[in-house]
């Protein structure tokens, strides 16, 4: 009786996994073995290993790495500060609030802010630095992406810091460790799981960013996501698009395994 009710509870979960996780992956793999005319072939895979796509993969990784790194650099101190703050839930909410606004709206807002006659350039000019090109540069791309991904990095780190027992820090200080040593030897190792899941939550989606590459980077940054979008929507070469997607899935699996572990304190 007991196992039967437990099995009944499993139904929604299994149905969800089969319909929305297993089935799409099977379909992607299926399409990746079809060339543009719908014949079975390995041509897409052969094609992936040409300079065009390898370069694209490399640049996707590079930008994803930058985005993750800067997100971490901003999010960790912020999370640390938040756990010390008086109204921490309120401050946290304020940081997460922008993620409720549609991504496209935010991107358009940044076009206005970063434009030649936008707010940012007005500020630079007032400072006597003159107008610079901000929009359509690597800087604006990384900046806007970091802005968008910060909540995903912040939350797991914040949770990990919250769960940490404060008496450990006191003990460390009592035993003569400096603030830096305490951070390095006690706080950081205890929150590493939060950092890892934060990095996963940022790195993996930023590998396949596409809308921002056009709106903010003016297509001067090309990621695998851009190529997938083009293959599915413009050329309708679903096979090639699916092949790139298969590579992304594989890469993500590898990242999950390498950084994966006892996922403690990794609630997003």
């Amino acid at each position: 009786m007991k196992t039967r009710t437990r099995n009944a509870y499993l139904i929604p979960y299994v149905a969800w996994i089969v319909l929305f996780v297993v089935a799409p992956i099977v379909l992607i793999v299926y399409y990746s073995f079809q060339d543009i005319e719908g014949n079975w072939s390995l041509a897409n895979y052969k094609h992936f290993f040409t300079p065009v796509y390898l370069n694209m993969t490399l640049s996707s990784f590079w930008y994803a790495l930058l985005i993750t790194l800067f997100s971490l650099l901003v999010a960790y101190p912020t999370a640390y500060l938040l756990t010390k703050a008086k109204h921490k839930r309120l401050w946290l909410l304020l940081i997460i609030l922008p993620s409720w606004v549609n991504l496209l709206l935010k991107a358009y807002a940044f076009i206005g802010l970063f434009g030649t006659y936008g707010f940012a350039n007005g500020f630079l000019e007032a400072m006597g630095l003159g107008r610079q090109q901000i929009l359509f540069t690597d800087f604006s791309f990384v900046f806007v992406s970091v802005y968008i991904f910060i909540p995903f990095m912040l939350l797991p780190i914040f949770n990990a810091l919250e769960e940490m027992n404060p008496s450990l820090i006191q003990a460390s200080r009592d035993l003569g460790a400096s603030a830096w040593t305490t951070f390095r030897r006690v706080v950081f190792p205890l929150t590493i799981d939060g950092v890892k899941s934060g990095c996963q939550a940022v790195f993996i989606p930023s590998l396949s960013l596409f809308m921002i590459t056009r709106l903010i980077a003016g297509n001067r940054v090309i990621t695998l996501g851009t190529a997938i979008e083009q293959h599915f929507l413009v050329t309708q070469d679903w096979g090639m698009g699916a092949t790139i997607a298969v590579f992304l899935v594989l890469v993500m699996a590898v990242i999950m395994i390498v950084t994966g572990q006892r996922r403690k304190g990794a609630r997003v």
Partner: protein
Amino acid sequence: MKQIVRLFASVIIAAFALMYLTSYLNSEQGYTGGNTLTIYNWGDYIDEELIAKFEEETGVKVIYQTFDSNEAMLTKIAQGGTTYDIAVPSDYAISKMREEDLLLPIDKSKIPNLQYIDPKFMNLSFDPDNEYSVPYFWGTVGIVFNPELVDGKTFESWEDLWSPDLRNDILLVDSAREVIGMGLNSLGYSLNDTNEDHLQEALKKLNQLTPNVKALVGDEIKMLLANEEAAVGLVWSGDAAEILDENDKLDFVVPKEGSNVWFDNMVIPKTANNLEAAHQFINFMLDPENAAQNAEYVGYATPNSEALKLLPEDISGDERFYPPSEVTDKLEVYDNLGKKMLAHYNELFLEFKMHSK
């Protein structure tokens, strides 16, 4: 639990209330029964007064819906579940829709006003003999530039874009056919060239343009050029007309080596319900007076030669948007190159985008 039930219940009740309200409002305005005509057109691509006039003349109620890309329109019609009686796709999309059997043939006996269409816009490669489509508007691809920002430079030739003075000052439309086509045109090849050597040559040529390219963007290009974010842009003439409307300092030119000419044609999708009204509407829009009024409102070039005569001289005489025959002779329609070649064009385009400054 109670709260959750209450939440769901209130959402469901609100949904039903809205559904009822919509059907009530529709019946109030006469959108019931068979005599409606559903039009699926680009945004802001018709003078709304003409819809009112059509409704008055025929008693047919018009439901007007809009799309913003051929691909979106194609997908929606292919999926089914829609009842569009009229759609307005561009040339290559028409050829695709024909291949996919999404169109109904047009009964020309019901469209006497077809006689007013300039024969040079009929019987084109995407729809031989105009079996499925009737011209609505046409236009070109060219260069919008800001004379103030380029100090008097002109753009008679595509080659002018490669000038070192324009460093980081050009916006391109994010579309493979237009950009690769520009590369091919600048070398004197056809837009529809499929010779691999020519394509590679065009790519090499385009890569040299990279230092001048500020960005490749979509519809935002109109806003960016009007705001003087860049001095020069590669755009469709229709967009150019809008940009010039916003900022009259800018100018538009079609380079002398030739360029693309595109058409938006009216078609009757397979999903149509009211064939009679669809034909009536097409005929109505081809009436010279109506076509002229529409062209004046929309700002694109009309294929209707009688309507052209009715337009004020400053519109019909504007050679930027109604180019003289020396220019139009050099313009080419995009052929449907087939999926494989299109994929190749897109890959070259990706390669061009990735070429770093």
